[in-house]
């Protein structure tokens, strides 16, 4: 893959099912790292991934995956995919499922055993390799699915709700796996509606709702608007008015005031203004908006 070509690119992709618009002129580009594709259920996240993989055709638009036009055979050679609806052949053992995918992914036969052992170890199924998939719990099947997606160190990994069936330990494991992938230079496209998950591992994020991207960017840029919690006594009405110039005020139950939408660089000025108004400052705590707050605010708009 050329360094200049993005790992994942969608250009003005529209997808209609009859009158229903699943994706509306979606454009995005992922060069590196872990990209979170966030949105409520039915926002079009899975449709976007399926279009990238050629499982579904775009009504309009173009793009690429792993350096080749999306949906092409060439684009599928170096990718890993964990579907949202994951099910694997119940009549096979975990090792056999992985071997089947090794074969379909055209991995050199000599590498299969090492590759399967490594993958089973990574997803925590090392001791269940010879068990039939039919005996697996949903969480174990999801781990197996993640293993299938990780075979042969793909350049791009697309994970569609990878932790939906996992318990907290499983979720933690998946986060660790994603972090390890990022360190190895793998590009990860993570579909999720679990905001905390995305917040913990993603570098870039796009928030999608009803088929449209409503916000996109680096996570810290997207969450850049911070707020500050101020605890002060003796604040006069004029003092409050002075603070209100810095942002929207929100009174907490314990007397603390949250100033929302203030730029980080202006926090010292805010403190001077409060002191200048004759109040006594006990605490100034800069607060990042959580992804959840930002998400809900965007969806509300």
């Amino acid at each position, binding site marked *: 893959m050329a360094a200049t070509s993005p790992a994942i690119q969608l250009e003005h992709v529209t997808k209609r099912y009859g009158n229903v618009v699943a994706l509306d002129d979606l454009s995005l580009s992922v060069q590196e790292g872990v990209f979170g594709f966030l949105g409520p259920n039915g926002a079009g996240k899975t449709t976007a991934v*399926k279009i990238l*993989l*050629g*499982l*579904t*055709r775009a009504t309009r638009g173009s793009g690429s995956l792993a350096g080749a036009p999306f949906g092409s*055979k*060439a684009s*599928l*050679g170096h*990718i890993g*995919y*964990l*579907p949202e*609806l*994951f*099910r*694997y*052949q119940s*009549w*096979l053992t975990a090792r056999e499922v992985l071997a*089947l*995918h090794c*074969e*379909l*992914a*055209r991995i050199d036969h000599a590498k299969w055993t090492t590759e399967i052992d490594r993958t089973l170890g990574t997803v925590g199924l090392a001791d269940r390799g010879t068990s039939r998939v039919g005996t697996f719990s949903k969480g174990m099947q999801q781990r197996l*699915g993640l293993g*299938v997606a990780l075979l042969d160190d793909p350049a791009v990994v697309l994970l569609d709700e990878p932790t939906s069936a996992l318990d907290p330990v499983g979720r933690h494991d998946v986060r660790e796996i994603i972090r390890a992938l990022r360190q190895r230079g793998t590009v990860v496209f993570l579909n999720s509606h679990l905001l905390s998950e995305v917040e913990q591992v993603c570098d870039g994020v796009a928030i999608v709702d009803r088929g449209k991207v409503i916000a996109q960017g680096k996570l810290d840029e997207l969450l850049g608007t911070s707020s500050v919690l101020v605890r002060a006594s003796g604040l006069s009405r004029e003092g409050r008015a002075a603070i209100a110039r810095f942002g929207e005020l929100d009174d907490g139950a314990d007397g603390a005031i949250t100033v929302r939408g203030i730029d980080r660089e202006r926090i010292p000025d805010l403190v001077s203004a409060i002191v200048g108004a004759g109040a006594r400052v006990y605490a100034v705590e800069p607060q990042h908006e959580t992804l959840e707050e930002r998400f809900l605010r965007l969806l509300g708009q």
Partner: protein
Amino acid sequence: MTPAIVVARQVVREAARRRLLLALILLTIVVIALTVWGVSRIDDLRNAGQPLPDPQKKTIVSQLLILVMFMFSWVLSLAAVFIAAPAISGELESGIALALLARPMSRAEYVAGKWLGLVALVIAYGVTAAIIELVAVQIVSGYLPPHPVEFLGFVIGEGVVILTFALMLSTRLAGMVGGVIAAILFGIAWMGGIVGGVGAAFNNATITHVATATKLILPTDGLWRGAVWSLEPSLVIAAQSGLGPAVAANPFFAAEPPPAAYVVWAVMWIVAMLALAVWSFRSREV
């Protein structure tokens, strides 16, 4: 190995692991044991205290064999429908197909692989069961039908026709729906063969044309007639043919094999149906 072969191997493996092959083998052994027992009793039959003359015994064995083989062909065809109808739709519904189709494998390779695997199953079961049955009957009665190889060809052809049709339906319809449609059409084609015989007997052109159409639309019964013909000793053909044109309606009798052109038609039909399946699945969104 090409992706189609990988997929085909999975079809066979699934049938083996899900104990489908085991069930078929056990039931077939039961049927074969019953036939062998039945055939062995023919020697004990008496007509006015006298054992039956050889030609009569031969006729009875051949008719019994045709009935048993009809059951075989029926089991083979319907089993093919049951396995082929959910072969693709089932994997789409469960989600198994999603991870597979995201590999560098074309839709055509996936469909071809499913078809190859199913054909391998039909051939494996058809050939094994028929050979065991024919050999067992020959050991017990000394009777071997005149065209055993042709018989295998026709019966397997019938199975492949119906499985290809069910597989094509599977690219669009749920297994249950495709299976019911294929089974009903299989029955209609069989009825069409009988109706065509009636039309021939009464010189009714309309009925004959309708029957010919069913024979062309789904060439299962046409091939079955070839299988029946392969099992008939010449004395049965001579005796039945003497009964007049109405015997053409008998689904267990054929005075002559299907013409070569019909066999060519059946092969072309299979190829065209497979092409239709590929085209249909290519345009399917999963």
